């Protein structure tokens, strides 16, 4: 992947060859019909065309000009979403469309070579076998200062909670993943509820996802919980243990809110398939609010339409705006943010606890709970805190990253479970970041980096679909964590927001349509040069550094003066 390419590139070419040989000796040899072709021309956005040698390895497509290392291309096969072939005479062209939305073009002399390369790329970029994935082969060429696999353990997160309240406990009821396959082994639940009750409540919730603690609001002790839908079915089944579990989170005489991320009619229809929602009769202490966040298949369609609209530069203004509207992407952003604001409002303004769920509780639910925390909790707006949030509310919470991110906007194959659920979350975070440019410790670079690594990565962090799958794959032993890379000082600096000033307040984003913009950093990244904007950014950093230096000088001067005055003072007092 290109993010690590800059340090790989500093390796001599002999290394490339060795790397290539090593890979070929392995399982991939028979998949690579033509390992190298000379005289290949590479065209890509904003960079000069280069000619060089194309090499295919088990995991990378490499173009080396053999002159200047900076012009090389290292592309993970896993990052390739789709390819197109074209022929003019014996000159073949392969258009490579990447999951990070970049499109590059390779002109390959020789029809046979071109066909071989194309078919190899097709196979290598769609390998189903998890064990062949690059993170298992990748060896870090940076020093791991802090092992990211150990950075955000649930036990540690719970220690923070314990310092604030005694009403919650950490349960290991799911230690062998038998109660809920998509939950982690440890979850926070009300202290007064025993594991047996949890097991019964789990049987009443979709996927065994019984209500667990998502967030504790220190200011007023209110909480946010999340779960799967209750399995009421058409007969209105009820479960005393489930009722007991969530009622245990309410203060005496207080009402809570259940935010169902589906519309009433969708929730009604779910009953026919065994699902449903909490009825007023059985949950009298809860008020249910329905919102409308779309299902994942619709989100994927939106992404495809949006990227298509962004890629056609010949549009008139009318056509562009109508295509943007028709993609519905911005509508999803607005719906998700609105629902997150609602959850945050219930907690902070109404002083009520909240339970959030949709159907499975692994997609829209997590969008809402994680964004509400960005709004409410200043800690989530730091670099470390945001990682902890992603770890807690997405990875541990069982968002099926592998299923959701195996195809992006270009893929021709029929989507199965793909959906840009996490990308939409990142887009929403970007919208809040744009509205509160000084309240986040990180810049949009961090969000873009996460987007890239969820779709293709040398790190194991986003592999698998749940904590249980990751543990079976033994990722923490066999792969490197993205957090190990991110938390090195030089990377932290790159991802930092120079305008950051810790803001301990709740931040309420505007969700009015005119306040929500298209996320250029992702969707127009390869379409228009960002040079002028980058220059402005550098200029801003420069000004801030200069001002800080000036201020530091002033402080030093004043200190010196003070010290001087202090030494002079006794003299003044003597008559």
């Amino acid at each position, binding site marked *: 992947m290109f993010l690590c390419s800059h340090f790989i590139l500093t390796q001599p070419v002999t290394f490339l060859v060795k790397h290539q040989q090593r890979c070929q000796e392995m399982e991939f040899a028979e998949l690579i019909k033509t390992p190298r072709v000379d005289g290949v021309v590479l065209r890509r956005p904003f960079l000069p065309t280069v000619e060089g040698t194309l090499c295919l390895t088990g995991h990378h497509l490499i173009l080396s000009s053999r002159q200047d290392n900076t012009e090389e291309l290292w592309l993970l096969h896993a990052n390739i979403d789709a390819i197109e072939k074209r022929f003019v005479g014996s000159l073949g062209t392969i258009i490579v469309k990447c999951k990070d939305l970049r499109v590059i073009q390779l002109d390959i002399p020789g029809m046979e070579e071109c066909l071989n390369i194309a078919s190899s790329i097709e196979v290598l970029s769609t390998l189903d076998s998890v064990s062949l994935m690059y993170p298992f082969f990748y060896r870090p060429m940076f020093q791991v200062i802090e092992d990211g696999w150990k950075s955000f353990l649930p036990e540690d997160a719970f220690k923070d909670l314990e310092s604030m309240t005694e009403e919650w406990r950490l349960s290991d009821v799911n230690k062998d993943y038998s109660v809920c396959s998509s939950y982690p082994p440890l979850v926070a639940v009300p202290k007064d509820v025993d594991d047996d009750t949890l097991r019964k409540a789990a049987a009443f919730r979709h996927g065994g996802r019984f209500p667990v603690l998502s967030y504790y609001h220190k200011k007023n002790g209110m909480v946010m919980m999340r779960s799967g839908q209750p399995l009421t079915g058409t007969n209105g089944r009820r479960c005393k243990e489930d009722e007991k579990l969530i009622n245990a989170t309410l203060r005496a005489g207080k009402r809570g809110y259940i935010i169902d991320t589906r519309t009433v009619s969708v929730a009604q229809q779910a009953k026919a398939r065994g699902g449903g929602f909490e009825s007023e009769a059985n949950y009298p202490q809860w008020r249910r609010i329905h919102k409308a966040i779309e299902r994942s298949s619709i989100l994927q369609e939106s992404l495809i339409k949006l990227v298509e609209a*962004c890629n056609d*530069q010949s*549009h*008139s*203004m*009318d*056509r*562009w*705006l*109508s295509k*943007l*509207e028709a993609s*519905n992407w*911005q*509508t999803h*952003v*607005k719906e998700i943010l609105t629902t997150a604001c609602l959850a945050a409002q219930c907690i902070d303004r109404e002083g009520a606890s909240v339970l959030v769920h949709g159907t499975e509780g692994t997609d829209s639910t997590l969008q809402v709970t994680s964004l509400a925390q960005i709004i409410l909790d200043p800690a989530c707006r730091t670099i470390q805190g945001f990682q902890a949030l992603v770890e807690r509310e997405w990875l541990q919470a069982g968002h099926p990253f592998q299923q959701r991110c195996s195809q992006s906007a270009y893929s021709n194959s029929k989507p199965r479970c793909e959906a840009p659920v996490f990308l939409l979350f990142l887009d929403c975070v970007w919208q809040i970041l744009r509205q509160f440019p000084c309240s986040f410790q990180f810049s949009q670079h961090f969000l873009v980096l996460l987007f890239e690594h969820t779709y293709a990565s040398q790190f194991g962090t986003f592999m698998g679909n749940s904590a249980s799958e990751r543990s079976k794959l033994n990722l923490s032993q066999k792969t490197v964590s993205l957090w190990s890379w991110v938390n090195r000082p030089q990377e932290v600096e790159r991802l930092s927001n120079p305008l950051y000033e810790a803001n301990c307040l709740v931040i309420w984003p505007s969700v*009015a*349509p*005119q306040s*929500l*913009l*298209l996320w250029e950093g992702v969707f*127009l990244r390869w*379409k*228009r*040069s960002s040079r*002028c*904007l980058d*220059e*402005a950014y550098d*200029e*801003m950093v420069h*000004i801030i550094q200069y001002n800080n230096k000036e201020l530091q000088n002033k402080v030093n001067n004043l200190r010196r003066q003070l010290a001087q005055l202090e030494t002079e003072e006794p003299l003044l007092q003597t008559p």
Partner: protein
Amino acid sequence: MMEHIRTPKVENVRLIDRTAPRKAMVGTLYLSATHTIFVENNPETRRETWVLHSMVASVERPPTTPSGSHLVVHTKNFQVVQLLIPQERDAMDVQASLARLSRPEKYSELYCLSINPNANKEEREESWSFLDLQADYRRMGVPNNLWVSTPANSEYRVCDTYPSELFVPKSATPPVIVGSSKFRSRGRLPVLTYFHQDTLAAICRCSQPLSGFSARSQEDEQMLEAIMKSNPGSDYIYVVDTRPKLNAMANRAAGKGYENEDHYANIKLQFIGIENIHVMRNSQQKISDVGELKTPSMGDFLWGLESSGWLKHIKAVLDAGVFIAKAVAEEGISVVVHCSDGWDRTAQACSVASVLLEPYYRTMKGLMLLIERDWVSFGHKFSHRYNHLEGDPKEVSPVIDQFLECVWQLSEQFPCAFEFNERFLVQLHRHVYSCQYGNFLGNSQKERRDMGLRERTHSLWPQLWKDRAQYANPLYRADHTQTQGILRPNTTPYCFK
């Protein structure tokens, strides 16, 4: 104006915050000869809200409610002030007073003419010498051996909407100048507006020729020929007709139209397709309606944005500027720009091109000069377009608004290229409407001279300059790469915000 005030003071009025209707301020409303003033009762804050009468676009009074009568005041710079007045009678009086106060019938009723001109005589006189248009022509290197000043329009003899001092090709003789002016709408003959020293190419502006279906004028043809010859590096010129071609053709039936390429040697005609003032007025109305929607969905908003056509029009204006700038800087070809009368779309296209071509026009003083030249001196009809006096509503149109928005769009693409920030543009926009200063009164240089505005009002420019610290763009550096040379903006639709 005092006689139009039916009630000078109303107590127990609520000023309602649109974003948080429950948080209203209670206070007293005063009507003065120039302002509506709301003073909060709270003795600790005593917050004051001032609205200049000339900024008021409309005052609506929705049906009376049990708690009183609402008044919704829309201003020309898109503020909305919502008042709740306990007595319906008072509300009606305030509404009627404001309706009259905000629509002066004579220039003398305007704020800038209501003050004693000699209170700060020296300051006033000095304020008008702050900008020197002739110095800006000299900065461009004009006059020179290609372009010369002509006395033809002294006392506004050939064109009463042009400035008295004009620059024309050296080879254009007085008969050519007069003849060409007779063949152009309202006598607005082709004259120089910008000269590009690097390529010696020029931007000239005029109105449409009176060509009809077959008329021609030897002098006008000679004039364009002279313009071509004033650029030694090229053997043709572009004639940019900023109108949609259909509109230009329709004008032929009225004895106007566009240059016949068979009659004019060595011209290349280019239509750009900026719509007329009526389309623009409706478009702005639509887009501000979109902003007024109570709780629009994303679909409502995007659909409204699209159907208003606003961004399409902004793109058209910017595209016109880009075409001209490219011709002048990259091809080294001179351009003659016109529309119908040559005071709206032509002003937009020429001034956008100047901003793209010339780093100086991206500074505060430079933009002031540019507005002074392409808009004020060349007879953009400020008082008609911005409704300074009660007049024909069909003459009103947000023409300079669109220019300012183009500059803003450019500043979004080139954040280090402009010395000023968004606030500067907003302030300029405000004063185009406010009539607090004499700069934008009237519809031509001649009208302003006849009114004696320099003797009776102050100029806006030194005031803005005095406050320049708050209008400065911190990212601007005179030696930055974005500050140098010509700007090449991306005008793909998704680049507009």
